[in-house]
């Protein structure tokens, strides 16, 4: 399900701090808004300088009326520079890129459950926006280290999602991890959408594989091109038994997170190598 992508320079409408280290940025782009699907990402140039040189992949967080919103955490220099931009500054964006979540499949008998660890909630909010258009029983599980860093509860509740929260220090919601939350919800009708740090994803994998629950995971990987040309982000995958065997040779074992992903069926990933 390929979407068209664009290279655009847009004026930043807003860039606001929403927690100790997270920011929300908005800009208008009819092109991107018309194409973007939940789980897709934007590849953003954070500076005109050659240091840092590469773009940074950031998920689409929300789209409303051609306004694109991203939610990002300041990790290093790239996101640091992004956070310094102010409304009126220009932002240089490629996108929407990647495959996105396969959420159209969700039928009535399936219960969509979104599992976000930390900033992993970013692509899931956009997914929730779209899911609530087709079903009324969207559950979102949010894991954070502490109360202050929980993101988007209000927004998600406004969408009428069922929101459950865990914190590592017990300062809000369940004292535990988002995997603990998921464990309690597990049943075979679930359709799981996950995004978060790798250790969390591995735990989710162990959990859902036991119960054979359909799960899609959004992965992160260092990227150069972001469009599938450089093979920098390719990861080892295993062929899904369900699908027809593909005869294109060995390289089919590697998939590009940027182009074939970032969303994969959880069973496709060779988790030992992550």
């Amino acid at each position, binding site marked *: 399900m390929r979407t068209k992508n664009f290279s655009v320079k847009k004026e930043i409408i807003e860039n606001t701090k929403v927690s100790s280290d997270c920011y929300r940025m908005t800009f208008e782009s009819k092109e991107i808004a018309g194409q973007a699907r939940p789980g897709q990402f934007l590849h953003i140039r954070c500076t005109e300088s050659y240091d840092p*040189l590469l773009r940074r992949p950031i998920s689409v967080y929300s789209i409303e009326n051609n306004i694109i919103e991203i939610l990002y955490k300041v990790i290093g220099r790239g996101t640091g520079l992004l956070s310094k931009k102010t409304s009126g500054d220009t932002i240089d964006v490629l996108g929407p890129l990647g495959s996105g979540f396969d959420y159209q499949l969700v039928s009535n008998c399936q219960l969509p459950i979104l599992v976000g660890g930390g900033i992993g909630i970013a692509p899931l909010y956009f997914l929730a926006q779209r899911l609530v258009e087709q079903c009324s029983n969207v559950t979102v599980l949010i894991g954070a280290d502490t109360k202050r860093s929980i993101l988007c509860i209000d927004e998600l509740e406004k969408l009428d999602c069922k929101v459950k929260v865990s914190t590592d220090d017990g300062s809000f919601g369940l004292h535990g991890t988002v995997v603990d939350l998921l464990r309690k919800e597990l049943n075979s009708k679930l359709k799981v959408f996950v995004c978060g740090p790798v250790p969390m994803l591995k735990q989710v994998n162990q959990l859902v594989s036991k119960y054979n629950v359909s799960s899609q995971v959004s992965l992160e990987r260092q990227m150069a091109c972001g469009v599938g*040309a450089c093979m920098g982000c390719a990861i080892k995958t295993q062929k899904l038994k369900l699908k027809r065997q593909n005869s*294109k040779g060995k390289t089919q074992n590697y998939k590009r997170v940027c182009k074939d992903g970032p969303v994969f069926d959880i069973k496709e990933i060779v988790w030992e190598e992550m």
Partner: protein
Amino acid sequence: MSKLSLGVDIAGIKMKNPIMTASGTFGYGLEYSQLIDIKKFGAIVAKTITLEPRIGNPQPRIVEVAGGMLNSIGLQNPGAKVFIEEKLPKLKGYRVPIIANISGSKEAEFVKLADLLKDIGLSGLEINISCPNVERAGLFAQDANLTYQLVKKVRKVTGLPLIVKLTPNVTDITLIARAAEDAGADAVSLINTLIGMSIDVQTKKPKLANVIGGLSGPAVKPVALRMVYEASKKVSIPVIGMGGIMTSDDAIEFLLAGASAVAIGTANFVNPNTCSEIIDGIKKYMEDNRFNKISDITGKLK
């Protein structure tokens, strides 16, 4: 007033401008097709292919460094068969000269590949004897004699314009460039990546799973430019310059230093419009300087 033309003829490859894509940074031309007008390019150099498919190196394969990046892709590619049957037909659709790029670990592989690729409508063949991400010790292009032998053998089997891609990881680039020329190469491409490394001090591990990788991007430009300058003074075949070209001024520096054409690699990742902007920039430079042809720039360093 005579007509301004950006056209160049590199070893028999007729290009409407001197801007090529650098192998491995543009896939097989398809990935960027939505973002840019590929028809504008002088030529497309496809990603290196090998006889058999290669899965490449483990992750992480790329790491950003000051002014550049290290990669250790390890020549992941679907192999010659898929290239010929699936990739090339699509590439030809752009009506731009297509140059295949091949590699191997033995002379025989290069020869066999060159043979396979000779009558399938390619405009040229680049042989990558300088990829640092495969077997470490002993790139062909680090030894003038090995370079000579290999190029000689490939030359015998192909009538295609033959471009030899050289590594900067050598004491004297001119010796290797001369060896390639003497063995019958029609052009040399330089530079491939500089071998580099990066370490994560927290985990105490190399940042690349493959430990070492190839450095590209603006950081290597001064070295690349110097090598193009040195090599082009010592060979009479065209030199295709590359290494850190980001802007039309960068490209013009390479032309002035002696390149007859230039290739754009890492810059594509940073700004997919680079090639197109460079073409426009060179045109403007020619107008400003009242130049009519690219050879008015090539080697015209004062």
